[in-house]
C-alpha cells in the first residue's frame, strides 16, 4: 500500500492573545497521496492558510498546535529538530503565496534568489546551480530566461513574478507543493496561464500539491480531491467530482447556490445567498458551526454536541453533517423564485468616440523632460438605456476605470462626447456640475474596507450625502430618510450609530450601496463591486443591487473582470482592451461565437465550478502592454492567438474598424468572416 505524503489527523490550532485563546482550526484531518493534488477551499477566515503554515511549522508566535498530528512522509513534523525542519523546508515541502511581488526579495536579483535554494539543500557548483535554475525558468515558460535571471523582481510583471516563485519552489524537487491563493492578485488571462502551468508541472514532476483557494472553479480545474472548510473546520471532503457532483453538506451547497454559475440568470434563476454571517472564532455555536445559517437546521440535533466527519455516500466522501440522510439534496432552493424581466427604457447615456489621454510628466518646479502621453481611453462609443445593465469587461489597464472617472466628472475627456440625458457632460469637471447631475450619476466602489471614512459613524455619512444633494429640509428629516435607506439595504437601524470598523465587509458594501442610492440616481457606476467580497456575501449584494435597480429603474454600468457575474447580471456587454472597445453586444451575443479573439480568451479563462461543463483551451501568451507604449495597429496583436489567420500583417499596422456583425453586435477585428463564422463555443 502506498503511504500518504501528508497525513493530518485531528489537527487543532489556537492563537493565544493576552486575554483569550482563539481557536483557528479544529479537528482538521486530510491525506494527500503521492502525485495527488488536494484542494482546500473556503471563505476568508475559515483557517485554510493557518493549516498551510502549520504544516511548515511556521505559525505566528502566538499560534500553537493544541491537538492532533501532522505527518509528512510518515514522520511527525512536531518531532523534527530545528536542523531537520530546515532541511524539510524548501527541499521537501515548498510554498507559493498570493502576492508574488511581496514574496520576492526586492533587493536581490532573481538569479541569487533561485540558486540560493540549491546552495542550501544540495552541494552544487555555481555553474550547476545556474544551469538548473535556468532550466527551471524554461520549464515555467518564461520568455528570455537569461535576461530575467539578471533582473530584479520589480522589473517583471505580476504573472512573471509568480512564475519565478513557482520555479523557486520546484527547484529542489519537493515532494509537496503548497499553493496559497497563487493567482488571486493576477488578471484572469494571466491566472489562466498560471493554472495551466501548475497542472502541467504537477503531472511532469509528480509533485503532490495542496492548492488553497476561495474559488471553487480553480479547485475543480486543478485538483483531484477537495476539502471544504468553514469556520475552522473541514465540513466536506472527497474526490472532486463526487463532492462537486453530489454535494453533501449544506454549506457547500450554499456556496454553489450563491455563485453566478454560467447558465444562471438574474431573472430566471436568481442567486440564493447564505443568510447570516461567519461566526467570530470565540462566538462559535454549540454543535454544528454552520447551524445558525443552515436552512436544514434542526433544534436538538444539530446543536447538541460536536459533530465528527461522517461518510456521505461513498467511503471516500465525508461530510460533517448529521442530517445527510434526511436532506433531499436535489431539491431546488427555496426563495429562488423567478423574476419578470424589466422593460428597458429610452437612451440615457450616449458615449461617442470618447478619448482620455493623460500627460505624465516628470516635471518639477523648473520644467522637466518631455511629457509622455498615456492613452487610457481611446475611441470608446456605446449607449446605455434606462433600467439597463451594461457591463464593461476588461483586465487591468484597459481603461474601464478611467472611463468611469470621466462619466463621474472626476476627469475631463480629451475628445469625443458623452451625452447624459441629452446633455454633454464629458468636459464638465464635478465642481462645474449641478447638484442634480451629480446626484444622478453615482458610484459604488470596489473595496468595502476603504469606501467608508473610518472617522465617522455610518449614519452620519449617509446624512452628509443627503445634505450635499439637497434632499430633505431639516436634519431630522434626513435622519429618518437615512434610516429608511438602511431598511432598503436590509441593515438594522441600530447600525446608524456604528463606526465602519464595527461592520463586516458585506455590511460596509451595503452602506456603500445605500449611499449611492441616497440621491435617487438615474445611473450607477459599480466598479468591481463584488471582487473584494466572499462568495456567499457576493450573492447577497448582487441580489440587493438587482432588486434596487429593478425598483428604481436605474441604469447600471457594471465594471468587472468576472465574466460569470457579468453574464448573470447584465443585459449588454462591452469588452475593453487597452483603451479600445474590442467587442460589444447583448450578453447572449458576447457569450456565443463568433467572438473577438480577446473575448474568446477571457471566456476560456473563467474557472468553472461546474462538473458538467466542458471548456475549450485558449491560453494567451505574454502580458498586457503598458498604455504608455501601446503596440502599433490592433491593440491586441501582441497576444492574439489568431493573428496568423489575417493576411498581410494587417494587424501590426492598421487599427481594425468596428465591424457590425449582427444587430447590435460589433467587433473590432481584422479576422475574415469565414474564420469568425467557423468559431465554436468556448464553453459547452
Amino acid at each position, binding site marked *: 500500500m502506498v503511504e500518504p505524503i501528508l497525513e493530518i489527523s485531528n489537527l487543532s490550532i489556537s492563537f493565544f492573545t493576552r486575554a483569550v485563546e482563539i481557536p483557528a482550526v479544529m479537528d482538521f484531518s486530510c491525506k494527500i497521496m503521492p502525485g495527488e493534488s488536494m484542494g482546500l477551499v473556503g471563505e476568508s477566515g475559515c483557517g485554510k492558510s493557518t493549516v498551510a503554515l502549520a504544516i511548515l511549522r511556521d505559525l505566528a508566535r502566538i499560534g500553537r498546535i493544541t491537538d492532533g498530528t501532522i505527518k509528512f512522509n510518515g514522520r511527525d513534523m512536531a518531532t523534527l529538530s530545528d536542523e531537520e525542519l530546515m532541511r524539510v523546508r524548501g527541499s521537501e515541502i515548498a510554498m507559493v503565496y498570493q502576492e508574488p511581488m511581496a514574496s520576492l526579495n526586492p533587493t536581490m536579483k532573481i538569479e541569487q534568489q533561485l540558486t540560493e535554494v540549491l546552495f542550501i539543500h544540495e552541494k552544487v557548483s555555481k555553474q550547476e546551480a545556474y544551469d538548473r535554475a535556468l532550466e527551471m525558468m524554461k520549464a515555467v515558460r518564461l520568455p528570455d530566461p537569461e535576461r530575467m535571471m539578471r533582473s530584479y523582481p520589480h522589473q517583471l510583471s505580476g504573472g512573471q513574478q509568480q512564475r519565478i516563485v513557482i520555479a523557486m519552489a520546484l527547484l529542489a524537487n519537493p515532494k509537496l507543493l503548497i499553493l496559497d491563493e497563487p493567482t488571486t492578485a493576477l488578471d484572469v488571462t494571466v491566472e489562466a496561464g498560471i493554472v495551466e502551468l501548475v497542472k502541467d508541472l504537477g503531472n511532469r514532476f509528480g509533485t503532490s500539491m495542496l492548492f488553497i483557494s476561495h474559488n471553487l472553479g480553480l479547485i475543480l480545474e486543478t485538483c483531484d480531491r477537495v476539502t471544504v472548510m468553514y469556520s475552522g473546520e473541514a465540513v466536506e471532503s472527497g474526490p472532486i467530482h463526487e463532492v462537486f457532483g453530489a454535494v453533501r453538506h449544506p454549506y457547500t451547497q450554499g456556496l454553489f447556490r450563491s455563485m453566478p454559475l454560467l447558465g444562471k440568470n438574474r431573472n430566471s434563476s436568481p442567486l440564493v445567498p447564505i443568510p447570516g454571517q461567519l461566526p467570530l472564532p470565540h462566538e462559535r455555536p454549540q454543535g454544528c458551526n454552520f447551524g445558525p445559517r443552515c436552512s436544514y437546521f434542526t433544534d436538538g440535533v444539530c446543536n447538541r454536541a460536536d459533530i465528527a466527519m461522517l461518510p456521505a455516500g461513498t467511503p471516500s466522501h465525508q461530510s460533517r453533517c448529521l442530517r445527510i440522510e434526511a436532506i433531499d439534496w436535489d431539491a431546488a432552493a427555496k426563495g429562488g423564485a423567478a423574476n419578470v424581466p424589466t422593460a428597458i427604457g429610452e437612451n440615457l447615456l450616449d458615449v461617442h468616440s470618447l478619448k482620455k489621454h493623460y500627460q505624465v510628466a516628470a516635471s518639477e518646479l523648473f520644467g522637466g523632460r518631455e511629457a509622455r502621453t498615456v492613452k487610457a481611453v481611446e475611441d470608446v462609443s456605446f449607449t446605455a438605456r434606462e433600467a439597463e445593465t451594461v457591463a464593461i469587461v476588461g483586465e487591468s489597464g484597459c481603461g474601464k476605470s478611467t472611463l468611469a472617472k470621466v462619466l463621474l466628472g472626476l476627469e475631463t475627456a480629451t475628445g469625443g462626447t458623452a451625452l447624459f440625458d441629452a446633455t454633454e457632460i464629458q468636459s464638465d469637471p464635478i465642481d462645474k456640475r449641478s447638484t442634480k447631475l451629480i446626484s444622478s450619476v453615482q458610484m459604488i466602489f470596489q473595496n468595502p474596507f*476603504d469606501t467608508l*471614512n473610518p472617522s465617522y459613524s455610518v449614519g452620519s455619512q449617509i446624512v452628509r450625502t443627503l445634505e450635499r444633494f439637497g434632499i430633505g429640509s431639516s436634519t431630522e428629516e434626513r435622519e429618518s430618510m437615512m434610516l429608511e435607506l438602511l431598511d432598503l439595504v436590509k441593515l438594522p437601524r441600530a447600525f446608524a450609530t456604528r463606526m465602519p470598523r464595527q461592520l463586516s465587509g458585506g455590511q460596509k458594501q451595503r452602506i456603500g450601496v445605500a449611499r449611492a442610492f441616497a440621491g435617487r440616481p438615474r445611473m450607477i457606476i459599480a466598479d468591481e463591486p463584488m471582487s473584494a467580497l466572499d462568495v456567499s456575501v457576493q450573492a447577497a449584494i448582487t441580489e440587493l443591487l438587482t432588486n434596487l435597480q429593478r425598483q428604481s429603474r436605474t441604469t447600471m454600468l457594471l465594471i468587472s473582470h468576472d465574466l460569470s457575474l457579468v453574464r448573470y447580471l447584465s443585459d449588454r456587454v462591452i469588452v475593453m482592451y487597452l483603451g479600445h472597445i474590442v467587442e460589444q453586444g447583448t450578453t447572449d451575443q458576447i457569450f456565443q461565437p463568433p467572438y473577438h479573439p480577446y473575448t474568446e480568451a477571457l471566456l476560456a479563462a473563467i474557472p468553472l465550478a461546474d462538473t458538467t461543463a466542458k471548456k475549450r483551451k485558449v491560453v494567451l501568451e505574454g502580458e498586457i502592454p503598458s498604455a504608455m507604449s501601446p503596440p502599433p495597429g490592433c491593440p491586441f496583436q501582441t497576444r492574439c492567438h489568431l493573428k496568423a489567420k489575417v493576411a498581410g500583417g494587417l494587424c501590426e499596422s492598421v487599427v481594425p474598424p468596428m465591424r457590425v456583425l449582427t444587430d447590435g453586435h460589433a467587433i473590432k477585428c481584422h479576422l475574415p468572416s469565414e474564420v469568425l463564422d467557423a468559431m465554436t463555443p468556448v464553453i459547452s
Partner: protein
Amino acid sequence: MEFLSTSDIVFRALAQFTPVWLSLFVLLALSLLFKRKLGLYGYVVETGTGFAGVLLLAFWLFTAIFAARIAPFDPLGQISAMKDALPGAIEKISGQPYLFGGDKLARDVFSRMVFGSRIVLIIAPLATLLALSVGIMLGLPAGYFGKRIDSVLSFLANLILAFPIILLFYLLVSPGILETPIPYALAGVFFLFPIILLYTLFWSGYRAHPLQMAIRLLLTSLVGGWLFATFVFDHDPFHILRVSPSTLNIFAAVALASGPGIFRIVRGLTLEIKTREYVQAAQTRGESAWYIMLWEILPNARGPLIVDACLRIGYTTILIGALGYFGLGMPPESPDWGTAIKESSRLLRAFVHPALPPALAMMSFVLGLNLLADALREQSLKD
C-alpha cells in the same frame, strides 16, 4: 552655616511637592478606574511606557500649575549669604533650606527649577500647536493638489530646512532684531494660520447649517482676535495676559523651525490618504476641495499627527533649552532650564549642584513626551 542631612533633603524635597503628589494620585486613580471609557488614552495608560510617560508629564504639568506653592523662595531673589551654597544649606532669615543649594548669584536652585517648568510648559506646546496649524494649512493643499502648489511650497519648506537651526536662531532671536518689524510680521503671519484654519474648517463643513456656521465663525473671530491682539501686539484688551516681545520672538522662531517638518508629514499623509476610496466617494458627491482636505483626510491623519506632535513638543523643549543655553531670547535672569544649565555649566569643576537639577528636569520632561509618543504609536498601530 547649618546644613540638612541628605535624607532630610530628600524628604523635604518630596514634601514640597505634596500638591503634585495629591493631584497625580487623583489623576492616575481616575485614569485607571475609567480606562475602558477613555479610548486610546485608556489603552496607553495600561502599557508600561505609556504609564511612565503620563506620570512624568503630569508631574511637570502639576509642578508648573502649583509652582508658587511648591517653591519656597522667589526664583529671582538673591540672598547674598547663600552664594554657591551647597545643597541643604539653611537660609538664616526665613529658616528655610536651599534644598538643592544656591547658584553663583545666590538664588535657590530648587525654586528656579520649579519655576522653570512654567516657561517650558507654556511655550513648547503652544509653539508646536502654532507650527501644527501652519503645517496642516499648507501641507494639505500641497499633498492634495500636487503640481505647482506642491513644488513651490515644498521648495520653501526645504529652504527653511536647509538652514541649520542654530544659525536660524542666531539670526532671528538676536536682541537687535527686536528693533525691526521682522519678528512681529513673522509672528503676525503665523498666528493668522490657526484662525484661518478654523475659518476654513467651519466654512467648508457647515454649508448646510448657516446658523451653526455663523456661531462658530463668530466665536473664532472673538477668541482668535483676542489671542492675536494679545500675542502679536502685546495688547490684551482685557489685560489678562502679557506676552513680551522676546517671548513672541521665541514663538515665531520655534514655529518657523518646526513648521516645515510638520508640513512634510501632513503632505505625505495627504498623498497617501487621498487615494482612498472614501475620498473618491466624497469627490463623486461633489464636495469642495477644502471639505475633503479638512473633513475627510485630516481626521484620518490624526493618529500619526498626534504622535508626531508629542515628539515635536519634546524637540521644541530641547530647542528652547538650546536658545537658553546660547543666551538667545530669554532674559539672562530667566529661571528656564536651558539658561540655568548654561549658567551652571561654566563652573562644573567647582560646583556641580546648580547644574544637575535643571538638566535632569529637562531630560525627564522630554523623556515623558517620548515615552508617551512611543506608547501612542504602538497602541494606535494595534487598532
